[in-house]
């Protein structure tokens, strides 16, 4: 008998919703003489969709890169935990592969997938952190290795079902439409059973239909599977629609932090966006949101 309900817990976090999952504590990052981040502090709560917004060059991606171990901030610390028992991990002093093992998964602004591997293989790679293979059984496809492989495939298939990419299962990723590739990247991150999902502009370069689709999948992952999500996004309508919490950066500093309604009513935010006449849409959204 086919049970249509999902069997796997994709959320790697064992914290109560609403308790702190990640704390960014006064980090400062500079490259030579350029300051990318100045004394940035924020807190991400379990179960939230936490958006980080700001004009170009505000330091959003630098912040994400610091959290996933690609950059090392000169000052401050980023702490993260997935359960009370395990306690806090220092992300700022850890290598990227360590951070992945702690359960921090991320997607990139420019898609970083293996173009010649299939959708299935790419997502299965996300299971890598959970593989515990011994050489011999793995070589002869026997016993524990075999059981493990089947169990992992079941998780991967559930993700394929969740993201509705069954028809692309055996296609090479490079041949797929951009919107589908983005979905595969989200799938690979999910396959890690992340405690925290970092998404760098998941909707960049998409048309409005693809954006709507992606927003829906992000919401599904967050609301139904409980995965804490930090995302960088430019589309204000999307951010205001789906986020629980918004942090606004400008010139490497936090200028506002709060719920979408609070943030869009904040004069400093309107100033940052309207001051340079570049993004009128936030002004409009901000005014709507304030009402």
């Amino acid at each position, binding site marked *: *008998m*086919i*049970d*249509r*309900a*999902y069997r796997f817990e994709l959320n790697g976090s064992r914290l109560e919703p609403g308790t702190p999952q990640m704390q960014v504590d006064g980090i400062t990052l500079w490259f030579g003489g350029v300051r990318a981040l100045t004394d940035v502090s924020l807190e991400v709560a379990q179960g939230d969709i936490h958006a980080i917004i700001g004009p170009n060059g505000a330091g959003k991606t630098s912040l994400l890169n610091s959290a996933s171990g690609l950059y090392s901030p000169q000052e401050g610390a980023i702490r993260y935990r997935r359960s009370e028992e395990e306690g806090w991990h220092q992300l700022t002093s850890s290598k990227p592969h360590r951070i992945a093992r702690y359960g921090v998964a991320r997607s990139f602004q420019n898609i970083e997938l293996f173009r010649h591997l299939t959708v299935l293989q790419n997502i299965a790679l996300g299971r890598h952190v959970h593989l515990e293979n011994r050489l011999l059984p793995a070589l002869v496809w026997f016993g524990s290795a075999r059981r493990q492989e089947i169990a992992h495939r*079941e998780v991967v*298939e*559930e993700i*394929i*079902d*969740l993201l*509705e990419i*069954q*028809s692309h*299962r055996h296609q090479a990723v490079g041949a797929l439409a951009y919107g589908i590739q983005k979905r595969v990247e989200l799938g690979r991150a999910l396959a890690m059973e992340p405690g925290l999902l970092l998404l760098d502009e998941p909707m960049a370069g998409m048309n409005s239909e693809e954006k709507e689709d992606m927003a829906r999948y992000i919401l*599904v992952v967050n*609301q*139904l599977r409980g995965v804490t999500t930090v995302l960088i996004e430019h589309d204000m309508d999307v951010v205001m629609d789906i986020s629980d919490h918004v942090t606004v950066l400008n010139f490497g500093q936090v200028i506002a932090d709060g719920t979408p309604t609070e943030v869009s009513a904040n004069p400093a935010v309107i100033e940052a966006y309207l001051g340079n006449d570049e993004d009128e849409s936030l002004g409009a959204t901000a005014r709507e949101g304030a009402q």
Partner: protein
Amino acid sequence: MTDAPTADATPATTASDANAPSTFPQLLRRLAAERPDDIALQEKRYGIWQPITWSEYEQRVAHVAHAFGRAGLGPGDIVAVLGDNRPEWLLAELAAQAIGAAVVGIYPTSVGAEIVHVLTYAEVRFVVAEDQEQVDKLLGIADQVPTLERIVYYQPHGLENYTSPMLIDFAVFEAEGAEDARQRPDWFAEQVDARSESDIAVICTTSGTTSRPKLATLAHGNLLSMGRQLMVLDPVTADDRYVSFLPFAWIGEQMLTLAVGLQVGQTISFPEDAETTRIDLREIGPDVMFSPPRIWESMLSDVQVRLGEAGWLKRTMFGWGYTVGDRVAERRVRGESASALDRVKHAVAEVVALRPIREQLGLRRLNRGYTGGAPLGPDVFRFFHAIGVNLKQIYGQTEICGIAVVHADDDVKFNTVGRPIPGTELRIADDGEIQLRSPAIFGGYLHNEEATREALGEDGWLRTGDAGYLDDDGHLVVIDRAKDVLQTAAGTMFSPAFIENKIKFSPFVEEAVIFGGTGEGEGGDDITALITIDANTVGTWAEHEKLSYSTYTDLAGKPEVARLIADETSRANQDLEEAIRVRRIVLLHKAFDPDDDEITRTRKVRRNIVSDRYDEIIAALGRGDDSVTILSKVTYQDGTSAERELTLEIVTVPAEPAEAGRRLAWSVS
């Protein structure tokens, strides 16, 4: 009236046996007893075919029936199902039938008013719905359907946080039924015993190209006799494979999955997802398939496009193989065998060209393919026979369980629909209307005696509303809907559908609607056509021609595309008599959409809606203007609409196509 020669009307022997199963649930019980561990249903899920055996099938039907029974449903009730083809669809259907209720299928793409119409008309209390999308639609209209009590959904994803008290998960519903079954273990068997073949089993919505769908009531006896009659001609065995991917709301799918499937006990496979259907079809390799023309047409355009992109060698090989296949098929369909030399050539052609194409289309094992529901162009027909697919036309209405007339093997004519199946009588009324009588004729439209009287008259012959005649071989030729038949200025009768199919044979054309010929009124004397392009093939063509385009409207508005389609129309004209050639065409700025009511959910053009909505364009076509400016109203999926001004060019069809010569069926260029 002239009574046509009818085939032998002896009913199949099993019907007379008093203990023989006479309802679907009784058939299921027999199969569960005889072959408990054979696979009844399989659905691809998580990349694997997940089987359900006959005994599991029966047990789950029993549990769902208990759940329905506990909720107070019983004889006379109607359960609606709204969703894609899944095992749960059939569980709900058979469970409803077991307790004496009937099932009505709603097309999964239906929206608002259509769903309300069916639910209120059938006074539905329980709806079994697939997923969040369908549940959202139902909750949105729930207050317009006073009888609605419960929505049972079987795909729970996304519905976890819904709080409407109407909702219940199918698994929970089934478990409640299982609990009830433990308390009254004999109840289900008694229920199944209590049913008879005159109980209404299925209610099918008629496709309604002319009006709101009517609800035709079909009894178990109707459906089973139709299945038996069909199998006298075309036997189906328990080993035959069948893939169920067309809506169960359509009589054709009910016919093969249940009326035939449950009598022989064949395994039914359900694709993983609408988008994977083609892949899954290839994996299963069905032996039997019944699809409306659009499926066959899309397979042909698929072949055309892929051969268009293939290299010289492949094209030449296929071209040769196709010619041989065509020649052999031409003799085979008349029951003759090919010459010895052709047989040798054909064996080679099979290996190098024909079998690989069938393999690609997932038709390699196919014994019999049927098309029905709408006319299929003779050229498309011929193509499938040439590549070795035994494609046959089915003619019949929902009111006669979908089938009355069919081609016999080796007696296929591309312009006819064949002969009546055993047990079916056919006559042509004095005004040329086709009339039918058989045990499969329905019991009437639900709550609509007037329409029932209109359809069946006093004598119980089904008035089909189609005009037709019998040719010299006794094959039925269907001209068109009687009221659609047009007359040229000179008085020649002609069928718009015939010309439309000629034009639609072009891979670049999706739909064509013919106007004119009345000699009076808006259409004018000349025959003209409103055409919608096939965005995929025209798009590919445009890329090859280095034409850039953005949207469908932009593509359809390109003068190059207009010339291309005019040329295609001219090609189609070459096969038509001078008097009924198409003189002018216009390319519509949008495709026909069921959400705009322009086309039914089974993709038949609603002529009256189209001529109403585009009357300005049609008038301009008739007058022979150069162009026409219209206000286009677009309804978006969320129900909002917008208007804007658009100018459409009216193109005169050239007398000769730019490249003379008849194009091969498989070639795009």
